[in-house]
């Protein structure tokens, strides 16, 4: 067998699989975008083309409110979760194994280990007693709950990134009399960035998707987009939610494209 030059970027089959994965990922998205233009009110039966669901969704105050609330909670929770997860990952990786590490590891992954409904009921009981005792019923509970279950989603990619990073550069930095903070800020953090970005994204979408815990923790007037939609399942989900999802998708794409173009200038 003749030996061809090996290229990591050209392993046969890999690009095909990757392209198929991308196609499969976008199929349902395509469906939901198409049905947001449905003239009928159904997400299953096509009744012709129409723009009517966009003004309907836009003019529905409840839809606007729940969407904004979802984004707020997801932003705050994912930032908090990623910050504490990064610290925890730095604390538990590339160090001498000490007794507490397995415990910390299990604690951090605990939210993954029980079905959401269990945490949900436990939080309902726990938070309700705080709500009664303090009288505070604000969004803080939702943000705290979301931050907690987002931590493992942020932690694992960061840890995976950190585990394989060698210490040469950091050691070099401290040999050059960089303070530990400078070494972290200018060496470790930039190297860790892809892991942090992956963790932040995972945390954000995880928070954005949560139904069950939110359902049990929310107080009066604290519906999020998912709980609003879950409550519609028993009746019927209208194309209105497709319209709002499409708008959010559009917003995401615009933001990401802007980010993408802005960063290009720096290159």
């Amino acid at each position: 067998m003749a030996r061809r030059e090996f290229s990591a970027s050209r392993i046969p089959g890999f690009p095909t699989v990757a392209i198929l994965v991308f196609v499969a990922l976008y199929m349902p998205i395509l469906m939901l975008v198409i049905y947001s233009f449905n003239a009928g009110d159904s997400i299953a039966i096509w009744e012709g083309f129409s723009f009517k669901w966009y003004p309907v969704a836009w003019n529905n105050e409840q839809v606007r409110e729940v969407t904004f609330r979802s984004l707020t909670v997801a932003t705050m929770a994912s930032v908090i979760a990623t910050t504490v997860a990064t610290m925890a990952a730095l604390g538990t990786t590339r160090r001498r194994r000490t007794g507490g590490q397995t415990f910390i590891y299990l604690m951090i992954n605990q939210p993954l280990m029980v079905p959401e409904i269990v945490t949900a009921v436990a939080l309902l009981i726990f938070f309700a007693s705080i709500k009664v005792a303090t009288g505070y019923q604000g969004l803080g509970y939702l943000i705290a709950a979301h931050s907690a279950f987002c931590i493992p989603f942020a932690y694992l990619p960061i840890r995976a990134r950190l585990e394989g990073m060698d210490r040469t550069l950091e050691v070099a930095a401290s040999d050059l009399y960089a303070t530990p903070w400078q070494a972290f800020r200018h060496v470790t953090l930039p190297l860790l960035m892809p892991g942090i970005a992956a963790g932040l994204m995972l945390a954000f979408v995880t928070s954005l998707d949560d139904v069950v815990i939110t359902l049990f923790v929310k107080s009066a007037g604290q519906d999020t987009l998912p709980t609003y939609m879950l409550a519609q399942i028993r009746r019927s989900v209208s194309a209105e939610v497709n319209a709002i999802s499409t708008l959010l998708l559009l917003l995401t794409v615009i933001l990401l494209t802007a980010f993408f173009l802005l960063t290009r200038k720096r290159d």
Partner: protein
Amino acid sequence: MKTTLTAIALLLGGTALASAEGELQLFNWGDYTSPEMIKKFEDETGINVTITDYDSNDTAMAKIEAGGHGFDLVVPSNSWVPIFIEKGLIQELDLSKLPNHGNIAQQWLESPYDPGRKYSVPWQWGSTGIAVNKTAYDGDINTSSIFMDPPEELVGKVNVTPEMNDVMSLALWYVGGEPCTEDTEMLKKARDALMEAKPKWQSMDYGMTEKMAANDVMASVYWNGAIFRARLKNPDVVYGYPKEGYPLWMDQVMLLSDAKNVDEAHQFLNFIMDPENAAMISSFARYANGIAGSEPFMPEDMMTAPEIVVAEEFQSSGHFLPTCSPKAQEYYTAIWTELQK
């Protein structure tokens, strides 16, 4: 920095800050409250209404029982009313603040679950019957055998709504028993019949307005209003009233014991007992209301719908479900768990 802090404080403080004008917190089933009706109420009274959704009676009660929720009004189904009363979760209404109370239709004024209607105001009512797609099966549809012993044509195409009380009652009537029975012979019969029928079902799911209309499901145990909406899209869908017995239900608005906006709540309750406003609720969610005189304000298609207006011949087999004893409830859940495994 200061602005950021204020913004965060506002955000976290939530609704507490916005209560100058008077507010009302309504905890209701999702997609069940007419936005036009709420808007009209807000315009007339200046009270700001916030709606929060739930998707099951159990979740609603668990949250209310835990406390600290901030809700004023809740809308559970009739068989839950005695439980709410017994647990002390709701308070008696001040009838002097409800001049429209007399508008409640005569037949709903005396309800077994709330004698004298001291606690609850009707929101909407309906039935749980059987929807069939005529193109798949054109035999008698006014029978529970459609799902308890599906005809050849419907095997593997039947959906059963995952509502324990409705399904158990239908099954008990089908085998000749009564809902909430503690008669083990009857319960065994019902269980065996259900277990035998289950392999012939396609699913136990919600969302049948779409699925019946789209021909995904050919028959289903479901609620009348949803099937009415399915029929408007797909004329092949028909709704049957099982002659063995079928459940009637009514969702009730009730005032919570720890409500903060009691006056506003009474204004709202009085408002929805006005026939015109009650009709707004009905024309949005597509179920009948319990207010006399609302008919002239109802949409034409609802007044003639066989799903909404129960024909004389089917009326006698419809019954409101009683609140089961804990013992009967235990039998129910054991059978239900076995059925869903």
